[in-house]
């Protein structure tokens, strides 16, 4: 099966700055694909190259097997939902949505019929005559979606589409986007800096940083088995316990303690043991037997309602431990000496690369 979008050695330079550095990536047909990374990581530039708004400096870019590297945006079977929506302020909703069809040469009445349908699809029926300035951010967002989807793109590109919405609306739109994607069955390529959004919505995620593609995988893959230190730290929260590999199942931590942790890194490599706060536990010192543990002192505790987050000071760093708020959960006052322990399978070893 041909990939919906295929990038091979795609590089983009702006003068001396390398925005995207030799990326290889294949996005399957019908997939909800997220590109995730901090701002300036090259994810938006990558999306713009797929859209044709920027051209790659090097490499090959194919959409359903056709090379499109330097084709202008109007010659590509993709459509974009822009970050700021970019609705045409001098046109009403209907004209905005019908724009793409009219430009493709459809008659006014045919374009109108399809547009009304698309407006219904995004649940804005009856608002055809409104101007964009008379609509809320969420409604504008839906218009932008309808305007792109009405053209039946083979791939829909979304550039931080939910960034400008407030939390509640954002969650609502997340569900809505997912529903639309499943209903239409086309690939959505979604750019975001919000890891939670990427995790909840996507079939697969590509994590980028400084122009490089660090890891591509399912949300579970990326959370459970991050490829390196950056991914482990960027996706969710984690404690990175520094150390060196001693053998394939032991890491020697910075304080000299040996803990059980599997890795395929060479002996002597400096690595970090990634310990997620919700997988660490806290207990009175001395009460932990067989399991891997480190000793420290409770620095402070934050009450979250459904959980308590303890910051525990070790000799050489601080770690966070999240204890679910279950009845009978033991309380540890600041200043108490405690042990932070975990199950041997709960940690994951990450290197720099």
């Amino acid at each position, binding site marked *: 099966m041909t990939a919906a979008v295929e990038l091979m050695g795609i590089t983009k330079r702006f003068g001396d700055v390398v925005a995207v550095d030799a990326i290889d990536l294949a996005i399957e047909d019908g997939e909800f694909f997220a590109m995730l990374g901090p701002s300036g990581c090259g994810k938006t530039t990558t999306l713009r190259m797929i859209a044709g708004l920027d051209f790659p400096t090097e490499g090959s870019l194919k959409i359903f097997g056709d090379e499109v590297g330097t084709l202008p945006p*109007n010659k590509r079977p993709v459509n974009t939902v*822009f970050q*700021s929506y970019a609705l045409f*302020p001098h046109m009403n909703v209907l004209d905005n949505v019908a724009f793409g069809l009219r430009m493709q040469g459809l008659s006014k009445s045919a374009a109108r019929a399809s547009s009304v349908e698309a407006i219904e699809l995004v649940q804005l029926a009856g608002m055809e005559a409104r101007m964009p300035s008379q609509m809320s951010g969420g409604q504008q967002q839906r218009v932008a979606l309808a305007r792109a989807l009405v053209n039946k793109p083979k791939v829909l590109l979304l550039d931080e589409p939910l960034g400008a919405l407030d939390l509640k609306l954002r969650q609502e739109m997340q569900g809505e986007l997912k529903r639309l994607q499943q209903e239409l069955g086309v690939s959505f390529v979604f750019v975001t800096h919000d890891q939670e959004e990427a995790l909840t919505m996507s079939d697969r995620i590509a994590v980028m940083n400084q122009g490089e593609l660090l890891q591509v995988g399912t949300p579970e893959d990326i959370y459970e088995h991050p490829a390196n230190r950056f991914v482990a730290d960027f996706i969710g929260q984690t404690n990175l316990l520094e150390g060196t590999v001693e053998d394939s199942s032991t890491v020697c931590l910075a304080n000299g303690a040996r803990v059980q942790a599997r890795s395929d890194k060479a002996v002597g490599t400096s690595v970090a043991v990634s310990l997620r706060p919700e997988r660490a536990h806290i207990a009175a010192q001395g009460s932990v037997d067989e399991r891997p543990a480190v000793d420290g002192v409770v620095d402070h505790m934050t009450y979250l309602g459904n959980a308590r987050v303890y910051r525990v000071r070790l000799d050489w760093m601080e770690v966070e431990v999240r204890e679910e708020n279950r009845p009978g959960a033991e309380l540890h006052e600041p200043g108490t000496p405690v042990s932070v322990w975990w199950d041997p399978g709960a940690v994951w070893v990450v290197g720099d690369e």
Partner: protein
Amino acid sequence: MTDSVRTQTSQRVLGLHAVFVYVFFYAPILILVVFSFSGDRLVGRWGGFTFDWYGEFLDNEQLTAFHDGAIWTSLKVAAVSTVIAVVLGTLAALSLERFRFRGQRVFDALLYLPIIIPDVTMGIMMLIFFSEAITFADTYLGFEFAKGLKTVVISHIAFNISFVSVVVRARLAGMDSRLEEAAMDLYATRWQTFAHVTFPQILPGVLGGALLALTLSLDDVVVTQFAAGPGATTLPVFVFSLIRRGVTPMINAVSVVMLVASLLLIALMLLADGLRSVADKSS
């Protein structure tokens, strides 16, 4: 207590200041209008109410004759130079805002020169340029042309391009360039993008630039005097020459007519703008 006294005092001072400003602005206009109805031959001495000066103005062949009267000359020059300057100025603004090309910064700097150069300098430049051009055309290209209406129009286009492009550029800079990207993403060609998205967005700037160009062209005395040949006397140049022959309240009458014409133009603009926003809301 002292605070409220202080606010009161400062408000009074500010109010007085405003009154002064308005007097300074509008008293001369008021005086002009009042004395255009004065029966005395001397400007500034009230001689009873009369419409005589307006009559004399209408009867003045040099002013009102169809085709070659000063008023018609002015209108023709203003209309032609505005249309051409708006097209060229808008294109210049687009090229500077939306494209990158070799020599762009030089072009950018040179484009604003006519705004900075004093009118007199510009006028003398035009004078020398046209006399050289006439000689050149005569000796090398083998066709003759003389200074006249055409040279006035050309000189007005020359300074109006700068003003139009400044106004249009400001509007372009304020426009979200993503709108153009969105249009191209939605299958519009470059030309369709300009026609359906860019142009409607910069239209207020283009109209503003056109109004400015029209006003500047109707106003100009200095450059026109240097560039004009026989048979190309515009209204301001004619008024100026009247003053040399001794001022009569007819000049007041002419000025009042010009004033009313500009006010009408502005009122029309506002009305069109108001109608458009009403249409926007109701549609």
